[in-house]
C-alpha cells in the first residue's frame, strides 16, 4: 500500500470516529423545564371570564302620512351601552310576516326616506346591526300609500227608500273606509230650512244643526240613523250630502236631491 493510500485510510477512520462521537453525544444532553398556567378571570369562575351580549331589539319605526310620494321613516336608537347598534337597516316587506325584505336604507342615523315607488300596502321594520354579522329586527308597521282614486259613493235617488233608516247607500275604497258623514237638509214650501238630527229630528237650520254627523257604516253600506217615517216624508226639497273619507285620507263629497 502506498503512503498516499495509507494517509487516506487514516483520515477516513478519523472521520467515522468523529461522527460516531458526535452522534452518540447528542443523546446525552438534557434540559430542565418548568410549566406554569395562566387562566383568565377569577379562580372561582374561569369558565365565564368571557361572555357575549346582544343587540337590543329596535323600536317599530314611524311613517309619514300616507301619500303617493316618498315615505319618511324615523325610529329611536337602541338602548345606550350594551347592545347599542352601530347602524340600522330599514326593511320593506310585502307581507305582515315572513318574506324576504328589500333593504331601503343602511344608516347610522335615525331617519330614512323610502323613495319608492310603494305599490300597494307594505310593511316596514328596523333591523339593528353590530359588527359584520350581529342583527336584531324589530316589529313591522304597515304602510298604505295614498292613491289618486277617491272613495266611491253611491246615493240612491229618490232619497228615503231604505228600510230601518232615513237614507242609505254604499261607499268603498281600496284602502278601506275610515268614516261616512252626512248633512240632510230640507227646505219647506215656506222657505224654512231644517237639518236632520237623529235624536231631535228636524231642527232649524244653523251652524250647529247643519254640521256633518256620523253615519253608520258596515262595508259597503252606510245608513243615516232615524225612522224612515219621520225622515224624508213631508213635502219639501231634501238635499243629502255625504262625505266619505278612506284610510289614506282621501275624501269624496257627494250630494243628491229629492223633492216631495
Amino acid at each position, binding site marked *: 500500500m502506498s503512503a498516499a493510500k495509507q494517509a487516506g485510510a487514516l483520515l477516513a477512520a478519523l472521520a467515522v470516529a468523529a461522527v460516531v462521537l458526535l452522534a452518540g453525544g447528542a443523546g446525552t*444532553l438534557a*434540559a*430542565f*423545564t*418548568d*410549566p*406554569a*398556567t*395562566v*387562566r*383568565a*378571570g*377569577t*379562580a372561582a369562575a*374561569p*369558565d*365565564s*371570564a*368571557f*361572555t*357575549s*351580549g*346582544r*343587540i337590543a331589539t329596535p323600536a317599530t319605526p314611524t311613517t309619514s302620512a300616507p301619500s303617493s310620494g316618498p315615505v319618511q321613516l324615523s325610529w329611536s336608537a337602541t338602548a*345606550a*351601552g*350594551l*347592545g*347599542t347598534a352601530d347602524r340600522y337597516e330599514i326593511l320593506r316587506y310585502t307581507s305582515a310576516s315572513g318574506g324576504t325584505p328589500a333593504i331601503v336604507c343602511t344608516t347610522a342615523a335615525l331617519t330614512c326616506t323610502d323613495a319608492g315607488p310603494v305599490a300597494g300596502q307594505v310593511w316596514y321594520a328596523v333591523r339593528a346591526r*353590530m*359588527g*359584520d*354579522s*350581529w*342583527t*336584531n329586527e324589530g316589529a313591522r308597521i304597515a304602510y298604505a300609500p295614498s292613491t289618486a282614486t277617491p272613495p266611491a259613493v253611491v246615493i240612491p235617488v229618490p232619497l228615503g227608500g231604505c228600510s230601518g233608516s232615513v237614507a242609505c247607500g254604499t261607499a268603498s275604497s281600496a284602502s278601506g273606509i275610515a268614516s261616512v258623514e252626512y248633512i240632510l237638509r230640507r227646505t219647506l214650501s215656506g222657505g224654512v230650512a231644517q237639518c236632520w238630527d237623529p235624536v231631535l229630528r228636524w231642527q232649524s237650520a244653523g251652524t250647529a244643526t247643519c254640521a256633518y254627523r256620523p253615519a253608520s257604516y258596515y262595508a259597503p253600506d252606510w245608513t243615516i240613523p232615524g225612522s224612515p217615517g219621520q225622515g224624508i216624508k213631508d213635502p219639501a226639497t231634501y238635499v243629502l250630502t255625504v262625505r266619505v273619507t278612506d284610510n289614506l285620507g282621501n275624501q269624496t263629497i257627494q250630494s243628491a236631491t229629492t223633492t216631495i
Partner: protein
Amino acid sequence: MAEPSATDRRFARSRMILGALALLGAICLLLGGQGTYAYWTDAATVTGSGFSSGRLDLTVNGQQGNPTAYAATNLSLTTMVPGESVAANLSIANVGDADFTYAPTVSTGGGLGPALEVRMFVGGSETGDDNTYPRTETCAGGTPVASGAVAARLNRGASQTLCVQVTLPASTGNAYQNVTTGSVSIALLATQVIA
C-alpha cells in the same frame, strides 16, 4: 533471466538468517522482559463537600402557576359585543438558577371560545379603557408572539412583560349573541438554555 551466482545466493541466505534472529530477539525482549520489572504504588481518596441540583423557576406576576393555575382576574370581559377587547399585562420572571426560554400556548373554551381571538405581545403594555362602550383595551407596542412559539429568553434573575389581548372580532357570527360561557388559558413552558 540469468541464474544467480553462488555468491548472490549466499548473501541472500545470510540476510534471511539475520532477519530471523532480529525478530526472535525482539519477541524475547517484549515478552520476557515484562515479568522482570515491578513498581511501588500509593492510593488516596478525595471526598467532596456534597452536590445539589439547581432549579428552573418561572413565575407569573410572582406566582408559580403550577400546579394551581394563576388567575388573571383583570383579563376578563362579560357581555362582549363584536369589536370589543380586553388586555392585561403578565410579568414573567426567571427566579430560578438557570437561564431559560419560554413558550406560551393559548387555548380557549366554553361557548364563546371559538369566537375569541387571543394575541400576545412580548414587551407590550396594556392600554385603553374597559369601562366605556365600546370597550377596547389593547396591547401597545411589543413583539407579537404566536401561540406555541418561543416568546423570549429570560436569563437568571430577569423578567419581562407579556401583554395578552382577548378580542371578540367584528366578524363574530350572529349565533354568538348572548353566550354565557367563555374561557382563555395560557400554558407557559420554560426550557433551560444549555449554552
